[in-house]
């Protein structure tokens, strides 16, 4: 690990000012960033710790949406009675991230800002058509995820909360990489007020919508309809854990399992 400066921010405004001044990185739960720093893959001159900022915490219902503070941990989302009741698929997804230690430290805002190609939360945000709220603006899910570890966030922009519209029904199913337990492929299927949305994580450079499956499910919301869609392997990842063709196969299979689980 390279040497770095550490600052604890008291408020979002305080954190944004520190980021703008130092050109550093925001530290949330540190479950990805600190690991990358240990491997010397990341070298931020300054870490601005935002995990303790009170205004970034808490989960509340806002009309037909559940609004989750960016510094809510995965464990807090998984155990929230409100999330479990309104969007059980989201609570279940949070319960399946990493292990207990990761869930007690990692945050939803940190996961989204990092945008790991195999992270779980981006699939939920994209499939549910959520809105990412920052200290500067509101960003629709379809505009947020830009590339591998790339988002629409600016350098001193901080996610404050994520607003999830409550779907009619939804489910997330992932096939775990046997070594890392990250999603080799994960598929989030949601029947929203604006139609069926299907988001895929783990399979490509970043989370994306499977429009072919969305179209099939719009006609017939059945497991068979999802499974019948043949996904092209172009642009999907190949590594020692699975070829692009295998991942393409998994997308249809997991989508059909998610439809069955959504009921």
């Amino acid at each position: 690990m390279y040497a770095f400066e550490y600052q604890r921010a008291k408020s979002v405004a305080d954190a944004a000012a520190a980021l703008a001044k130092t050109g550093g990185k925001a530290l949330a739960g540190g479950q990805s960033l600190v690991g990358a720093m240990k491997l010397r893959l990341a070298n931020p001159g300054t870490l601005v710790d935002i995990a303790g900022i009170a205004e970034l915490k808490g989960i509340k219902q806002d009309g037909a949406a559940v609004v989750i503070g960016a510094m809510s941990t995965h464990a807090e989302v998984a155990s929230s009675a409100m999330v479990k009741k309104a969007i059980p698929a989201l609570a279940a997804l949070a319960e399946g991230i990493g292990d207990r230690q990761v869930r007690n430290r990692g945050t939803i805002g940190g996961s989204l800002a990092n945008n790991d190609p195999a992270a779980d939360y981006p699939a939920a945000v994209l499939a549910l058509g959520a809105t990412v709220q920052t200290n500067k603006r509101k960003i629709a899910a379809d505009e947020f995820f830009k590339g591998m570890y790339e988002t629409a966030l600016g350098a001193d922009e901080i996610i404050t909360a994520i607003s999830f519209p409550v779907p009619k029904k939804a489910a997330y199913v992932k096939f775990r990489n046997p070594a890392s337990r990250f999603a080799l492929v994960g598929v989030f299927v949601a029947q929203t007020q604006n139609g069926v949305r299907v988001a895929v994580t783990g399979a490509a450079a970043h989370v994306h919508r499977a429009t072919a499956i969305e179209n099939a499910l719009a006609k017939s919301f059945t497991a068979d309809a999802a499974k019948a869609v043949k996904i092209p392997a172009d642009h999907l990842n190949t590594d020692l854990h699975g070829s692009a063709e295998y991942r393409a196969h998994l997308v249809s299979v997991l989508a059909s399992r998610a439809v069955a689980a959504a009921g």
Partner: protein
Amino acid sequence: MYDKESGQLLTGSYMDYAMPRSDDLPSFKGATKVTPCTHNPLGAKGCGEAGAIGAPAALMNAVHDALSASGVQYLDMPATPHRVWQALQTARQ
């Protein structure tokens, strides 16, 4: 595992090298069966790494048995989900 072209180690951490965890272990019952060796006075046998020698062969035999109905003739270790799927795809063609 190493990359064939460059020699680069691909399984450099437990993020890529599948280390079995406690929840990978099936439940099992232990039992002992005493069969003294007849070729030495103590009746002792070498028994080091018994699990590492017999278990992979037994497991791969079981995998082959399960896949044989689909026409899979041969599968190399490790029987990862991807390799089992690939073997089934090849056998079907």
